[in-house]
């Protein structure tokens, strides 16, 4: 059952990721990236990482993709404004990515994974467990990330503001 779910989710993830790269219309790219993020959230649920699944949907589908959508609409991008790269560069890009994939596959093949529990531990991804780790061992980075957010917010406002001449 979970293998079937894994295959379905993986096929959807890979297909939507390919659509992101290969479609000409930026709007379709954004929409299929949203699908891709939802399927990755499905993978998290399959791995019983419920806290991360919810956070992933809130952060990515709720915040980041809305930002992307607004930007694409704001800049009025469409297929006409998108000039594809020249044929040579596209072939080079495909070969480069393919060779990276082969290299990574070879390194995976030659690695022996340590002894992992085969039925994965089920309680580690629950809100209670991750929350406890976050507020005890990782309290300082958690608080510092709020400063990062504050500076990113101010930076975004300053950068996107219209300059007065």
């Amino acid at each position, binding site marked *: 059952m979970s293998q079937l779910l894994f295959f379905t989710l993986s096929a959807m993830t890979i297909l939507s990721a390919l659509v992101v790269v290969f479609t000409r219309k930026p709007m379709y790219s954004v929409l299929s990236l949203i699908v*891709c993020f939802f399927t*990755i959230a499905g993978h998290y649920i399959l791995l019983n990482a419920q806290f991360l699944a919810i956070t992933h949907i809130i952060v990515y589908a709720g915040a980041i993709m809305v930002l*992307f959508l607004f930007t694409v609409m704001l800049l009025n991008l469409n297929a006409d404004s998108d000039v594809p790269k020249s044929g040579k560069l596209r072939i080079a890009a495909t070969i480069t990515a393919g060779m990276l994939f082969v290299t990574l596959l070879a390194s995976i093949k030659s690695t022996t994974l340590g002894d992992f529990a085969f039925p994965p531990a089920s309680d580690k991804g629950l809100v209670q467990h991750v929350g406890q780790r*976050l507020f005890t061992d990782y309290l300082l980075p958690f608080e510092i990330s709020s400063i990062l957010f504050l500076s990113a917010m101010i930076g975004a406002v300053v*950068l996107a503001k219209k300059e007065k001449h």
Partner: protein
Amino acid sequence: MEQAAHLVPLNWYLFLSTFLFCIGVMGVLFRRNAIIILMCIELMLNSVNLLLVAFSAYSGNSDGQVFVFFIMVVAAAEVAVGLALLISIYRNIGSTDIDVLNKLKW
């Protein structure tokens, strides 16, 4: 252990996230629109997140999930600043084509 046959081995997650990462790399090299490139970077970040969660779940240690949480934090900040930069670039040169932005190239 009868159920174990229906579970997903860790290797499959390795292959899936490797493939996703390579799609992201390919998108960065393949496209000229800066917004699509930013989206492909998000794709790469997500493939690494997926692998971290898989390793964390299979090793029964929740540290990896906390790292994924922090990666999400950084990704959100990065997207906010990156899109603000793109809007400012669009205002100045009227396009998001990275081949137009070649003043610092050579």
